[in-house]
């Protein structure tokens, strides 16, 4: 709590009043307890109710969101020390709370009571503290501890890891993040209780919440780290749902869904499966490798031949004809040392957008002719 010379006396009086009010409501109050590296104003504990970590702001300025974050970090430290207890962070403030800060407090599970939350005048610290203590007494409890939530999260993360790693060669779900998922799931469970009232199966709901959070996190990570794997996974989900609807009595849908997704992905030509190959790095061509150079020259010569006017070229599917535009595009690509990004389209009087399209069309034609050339 802020203890500058001005508000110091007011803060001390309010602190004393809150301590007395909490004790009057049956809590055992520990003044400035040491929790990890933190020292909040109070720790209030009582029989069969959650422990409260209380921070008081006696200044009249609106609450800064960092104060909310600070109380959340106190709670996290307390839960890490005693994961089997339910601990609630409470911020008591004379000043009003802005809508944004109240929203932040809800999202991180911190209870904020302000002067305006108390039905009486805030001029009398004793009356205000008593009103706050009554409100804290009536707060709901959630019959699931963080310890349980972390175990649920750990199980889900391990399961997701077992499913993803063999297939995609990477573990996007970090089992070490179980504490964070558990804590967040618990907060969301509390929010749902506050919104919908009593929940008959809190553990089942918590499992669903954490599972959704994990999948959402995995999806976000795959979007950037492995877009091919994400596309494949979405296909698996699609086929799994389809198979489950078609044959609800059968089990083994998952393996079949994976197979179907593999087939469709192959048909679409997407790179999907990561294969562990220790020698792969040695197979990557060094641009200075003489073989690579000869290969490139050979490759260029072959394309020169097939794009020549009158050259007879055909693929397995259809005959391929190279136009003057194709030959022009090929000459530009060669001039840029086969690096499409380095082609200066405007220098040749071609709009870059059109140039890219021409290059794409040309390369597709070349691909149909030389598909098996290297082998």
């Amino acid at each position, binding site marked *: *709590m802020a*203890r500058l010379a001005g508000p110091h006396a007011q803060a001390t009086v309010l602190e004393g009043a809150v301590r007395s009010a909490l004790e009057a409501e049956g809590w055992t109050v520990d003044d400035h307890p040491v929790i990890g590296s933190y020292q909040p*104003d109070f720790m209030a504990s009582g029989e069969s109710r959650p422990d409260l970590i209380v921070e008081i702001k006696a200044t009249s300025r609106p609450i800064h*969101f960092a104060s909310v974050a600070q109380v959340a*970090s106190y709670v996290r430290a307390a839960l890490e020390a005693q994961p089997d207890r339910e601990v609630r962070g409470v911020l008591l403030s004379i000043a009003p709370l802005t809508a944004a800060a109240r929203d*932040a407090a809800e999202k991180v599970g911190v209870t904020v009571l302000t002067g305006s939350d108390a039905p009486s005048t805030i001029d009398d610290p004793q009356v205000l503290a008593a009103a706050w203590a009554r409100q804290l007494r009536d707060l709901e409890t959630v019959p699931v501890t963080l310890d349980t939530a972390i175990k649920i999260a750990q199980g889900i993360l391990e399961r997701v890891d077992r499913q993803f790693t063999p297939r995609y060669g990477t573990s996007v779900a970090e089992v070490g993040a179980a504490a964070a998922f558990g804590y*967040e799931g618990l907060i969301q469970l509390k929010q749902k209780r506050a919104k919908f009232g009593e929940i008959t199966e809190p553990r089942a709901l918590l499992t669903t919440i954490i599972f959704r959070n994990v999948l959402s996190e995995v999806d976000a990570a795959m979007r950037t780290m492995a877009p091919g794997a994400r596309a494949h996974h979405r296909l698996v989900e699609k086929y799994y749902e389809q198979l489950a609807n078609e044959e609800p009595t059968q089990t083994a849908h998952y393996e079949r869904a994976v197979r179907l997704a593999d087939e469709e992905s192959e048909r679409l030509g997407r790179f999907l499966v990561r294969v562990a190959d220790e020698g792969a790095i040695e197979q990557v061509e060094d641009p200075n490798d003489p073989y690579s150079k000869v290969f490139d020259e050979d490759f260029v010569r072959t394309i020169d031949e097939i794009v020549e006017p009158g050259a007879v070229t055909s693929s397995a599917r259809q005959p391929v004809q190279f136009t003057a535009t194709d030959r022009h595009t090929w000459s530009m690509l060669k001039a840029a040392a086969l690096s499409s990004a380095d082609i200066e389209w405007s220098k040749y009087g071609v709009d870059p957008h059109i140039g890219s399209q021409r290059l794409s069309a040309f390369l597709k034609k070349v691909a149909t002719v030389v598909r098996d050339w290297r082998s």
Partner: protein
Amino acid sequence: MRAELTIRHKAGDFLAPLSQQLPADDRSCLSRSLLFASSRAWQANVAFATETPHWRLVVYSDGADQWQMVVEPIHGDLKKACGSLWSTVQRSTRSLSPKLDRLEVIDDGTGQVVAQARTGLAPQVRRREFWLPLAVGLANGVVLATTGADTATIRATIPGFAAAAIALLFIVGDAVRKSLVWHD
């Protein structure tokens, strides 16, 4: 230790020009923060977060024309970081007339305010290092007024007046530039 800032401004886009002057938005830096690592919800709820080798900045919207910020030191001087950030805010959002409502350095462990900074003329005048030259200038003025303005007296008071004038220039200059004045 962290610094909490509250900045108010005229209506307009504040964050876009400011973020252009700062390293790219990187919410993942919140996981390295003692304050914000407690919940992943912060990553979705803050408006902007970034990190330099010296400090970490987290910005939170507190209405249409008000922003709350937190600066956490990594390897560096927190007061210097605040000064640098405040200069960047002023430079990038000059047209919105940003006003520093509050800047406090808070001890993370206890939540106590350990230092505050203000801007404006009154805090600049309260800087004790300028009191002596201003007092000397004032005393010289009193001497001149009471003993008469002969050449010798005027010459003798010139250094005192010069010192007071320089002190005044610093005070007014810093007030106009909205430089931070720290006090514990």
